[in-house]
């Protein structure tokens, strides 16, 4: 281990985050490696190691002969300071080698507030920030993940964006880089070749022009470069790579357990939810595959905790059979099985009670909106009766805490909808009074609200976000309404972060200098309250002459060219607009299993959708 590193590890918090050497970390002999890949996660080790995508791509890349993929995370402030002081550049955890010497540096973009950490990591690595400053001597900078669906705010910094699922396209990218090296391509030639690979978007090969009113006039690719980049998907989930043999961190991470992925996509079509649209079409794994992978994952990792993961777990058709099958293995081996993201319906409650086996942790429901009208408008297919029935079951069974999650500022929301949240919380309280076997224990009902952030590739991509003042007014309104309800705790998110998220989520290339300015003024790890400064961001907007309100608070016209129009998630734009119109009529669209409404995503899978 590097002596300078050893010296600083003694004085930083949780040093095991920076050492590597965990069980199943991949170390390859350098002489057998021709291509080195740094998989960078722009957040801490604990967050990054909890990401299933990282584990999948790490496994896929390291299965390739001659390719060595290592992990890199954003250091916490104390470590960053020590690294800068001692002149230690950002290194791969497996080898300790500086990543500036690698062939490819890939970033996983899951959250807009991590953008400043991307810049900070490039800088810590000693890699020039801008694509145009990097020739073939520098690593190729690629980025993927959900945020890549609107890549434009990072366009000047990233060479190639990878759209959709990376299992196949990441391999193709590496092969293309190898070929480029063999044939002596310049960086520009390499980028041009990469742009021919389906699912890869090379921003420097597209020119964006703007109108006088600030909207995008046109996005023009260079000759020979595709005008539309469509995301990639894995067609057959049963044969897709799954990281059964995966790293077991030696220090506690956020999701410190086996994550068994049931399916991709979601049948629900909640109109605010980007994941619900961009991960389409629905593709399930078979019961047999999952039963085998679940067992093998526990055995291989030694984790005695397993969670079933997907966008909406209770929508996996053979869920009961799967749980029964897994429990056969889990019970005798002291492995606990848990289900996140359950819906508030009877089926889920039955299942939950069976899995709990005596344990009574808190129950969480996400009705998202306070009234049926608004729930219909956002296509959240949960009724008040569903929710109360679930609460009845829970309270009868002895639960005494319920968390309810809502969003404020959803399109078409009125004050009546906001106050409806308080109404619903009161009804839950009444249900508890009626059904609890033991009133003296009391009940804890927690209402949490977040601020809606319109995202690209959803029916709400054209919507204006509420102003921060409007959000505050709604929070105050609800807080007032709940003031006398002693059993209800009200938590709310601050609108400042949501405002910035809205700007970054739908920004164009003119937002890039703002991100850089904020970073230069010290922004990094912006998802952590220890580091986030709203003031710093506002100063950055001002310094760059960019009006954030233009991106957050402006409703887009139907025919406006959107900054992400060169990217397709498979769902047709007309479908999204139709869904938006359905919202304004408070009309629900049936879920994909009741009726296919022809979103278009199944074209990516030869017409097949498991919805």
């Amino acid at each position, binding site marked *: *281990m590097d002596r300078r590193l050893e010296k600083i590890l003694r004085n930083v918090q*949780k040093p*095991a985050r920076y050492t590597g050497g965990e069980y199943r970390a991949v170390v390859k002999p350098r002489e057998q490696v021709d291509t080195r890949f740094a998989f960078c996660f722009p957040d801490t080790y604990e967050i990054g190691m909890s990401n299933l995508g990282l584990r999948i791509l790490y496994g896929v890349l390291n299965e390739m002969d001659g390719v060595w993929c290592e992990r890199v995370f954003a250091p916490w402030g104390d470590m960053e300071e020590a690294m800068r002081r001692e002149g230690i550049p950002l290194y791969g955890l497996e080898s300790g080698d500086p990543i500036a010497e690698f062939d490819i540096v890939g970033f996983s973009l899951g959250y807009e507030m991590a953008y400043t950490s991307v810049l900070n990591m490039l800088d810590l690595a000693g890699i020039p920030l801008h694509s145009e400053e990097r020739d073939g001597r520098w690593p190729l900078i690629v980025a993927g993940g959900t945020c890549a669906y609107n890549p434009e705010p990072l366009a000047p910094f990233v060479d190639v964006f990878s759209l959709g699922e990376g299992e196949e396209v990441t391999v193709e990218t590496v092969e293309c880089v190898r070929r480029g090296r063999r044939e002596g391509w310049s960086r520009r030639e390499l980028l041009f070749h990469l742009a021919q690979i389906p699912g890869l978007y090379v921003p420097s090969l597209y020119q964006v022009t703007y109108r006088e009113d600030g909207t995008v006039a046109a996005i023009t690719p260079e000759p020979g470069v595709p005008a539309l980049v469509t995301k990639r998907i894995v067609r057959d989930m049963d044969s897709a790579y799954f990281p059964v043999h995966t790293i077991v961190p030696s220090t506690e991470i956020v999701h410190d357990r086996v994550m068994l992925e049931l399916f991709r996509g979601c049948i629900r079509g909640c109109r605010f939810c980007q994941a619900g649209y961009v991960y389409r079409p629905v593709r399930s794994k078979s019961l047999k595959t999952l039963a085998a992978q679940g067992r093998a994952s526990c*055995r291989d990792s*030694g984790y005695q905790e397993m969670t079933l993961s997907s966008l909406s777990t209770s929508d996996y058709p053979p869920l009961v059979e799967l749980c029964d099958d897994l429990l056969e293995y889990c019970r005798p081996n*002291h492995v606990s099985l848990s289900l996140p993201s359950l819906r508030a319906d009877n089926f889920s409650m039955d299942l939950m009670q069976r899995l709990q086996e005596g*344990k009574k942790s808190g129950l969480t429901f996400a009705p998202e909106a306070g009234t049926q009208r608004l729930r219909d408008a956002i296509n959240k297919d949960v009724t008040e009766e569903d929710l109360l029935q679930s609460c009845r079951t829970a309270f009868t069974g002895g639960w005494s805490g319920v968390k309810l999650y809502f969003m404020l500022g959803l399109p078409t929301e009125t004050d009546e909808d906001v106050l409806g949240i308080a109404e619903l919380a009161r009804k839950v309280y009444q249900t508890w009074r009626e059904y609890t076997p033991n009133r003296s224990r009391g009940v804890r009902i927690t209402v949490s609200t977040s601020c809606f952030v319109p995202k690209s590739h959803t029916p709400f991509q054209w919507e204006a976000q509420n102003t921060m003042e409007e959000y505050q007014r709604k929070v105050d309104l609800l807080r007032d309404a709940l003031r006398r309800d002693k059993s209800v705790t009200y938590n709310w998110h601050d609108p400042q972060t949501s405002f910035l998220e809205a700007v970054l989520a739908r920004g164009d290339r003119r937002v890039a200098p703002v991100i850089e300015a904020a970073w230069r003024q010290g922004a990094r790890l912006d998802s952590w309250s220890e580091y986030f400064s709203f003031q710093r961001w506002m100063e950055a907007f001002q310094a760059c002459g960019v009006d954030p309100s233009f991106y957050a608070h402006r409703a887009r016209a139907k025919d406006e060219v959107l900054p992400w129009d060169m990217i397709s998630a498979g769902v047709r734009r007309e479908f999204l607009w139709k869904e938006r119109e359905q919202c304004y009529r408070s009309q629900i669209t049936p879920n994909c299993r009741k009726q296919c409404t022809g979103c278009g995503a199944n074209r990516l899978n030869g017409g097949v959708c498991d919805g």
Partner: protein
Amino acid sequence: MAEHRLLFIKEGRACYISHLDLMRTFQRAFFRAGISIKHTEGFHPHAFISIALPLSLGYASRCELLEFTLLDGAPEEVPEKLNPVLPEGIRVLDCYTGGRPIKELAFVDYEVTLEYPEEKVISQAKAALEELLGRESVIVRKRSKKAKSGWTEVDIIPRIRSWAVERRPGALVLEGVLAAQNPGLNPELICAALQQEHSDCAPGFTRFLRREVLDGDGKAFR
């Protein structure tokens, strides 16, 4: 009570695994090695293990002891089953039935390497350290969770059973047999004493290695 004991090494990158994380690491390693061990009762049963004398973060050791109860299989087979599934830097040397009560563990043999960037300071530091350890009493201020002021004073001399200082290229090596518990002495406090009494002799970097655990007679403790 635990019926079996492991003797293991913790070195290299594994030095930075904390005590709690190390327990979790072993719990998982037992499971992936297919070794059944006794679990706790209750809603959240977990493998029942304990590690004697928690090692400070960053220290290396050749003599860590872990107590557990094997439910089936022979203890002799445990090292070969466990070693392939442990993280880098952790290696099991031995597994056996029984073992003496931990309260009889009296001393720890440490090797402390004080590294200096300049050779010329080393002779001076050697003399300083020898002078310090030769005193009747050396009081060091130490952080304390119990004391109201947050600090407490410790006399390190009575807790040192024997010591020797040797010069090596670029470093000074202190070999010390220190009290293990009730109360024990962390060798870091000897370095703190050196810093306190001879601040010009403070090393650039210090390495700590636990070489052996000993009983009251100075024999290896198992």
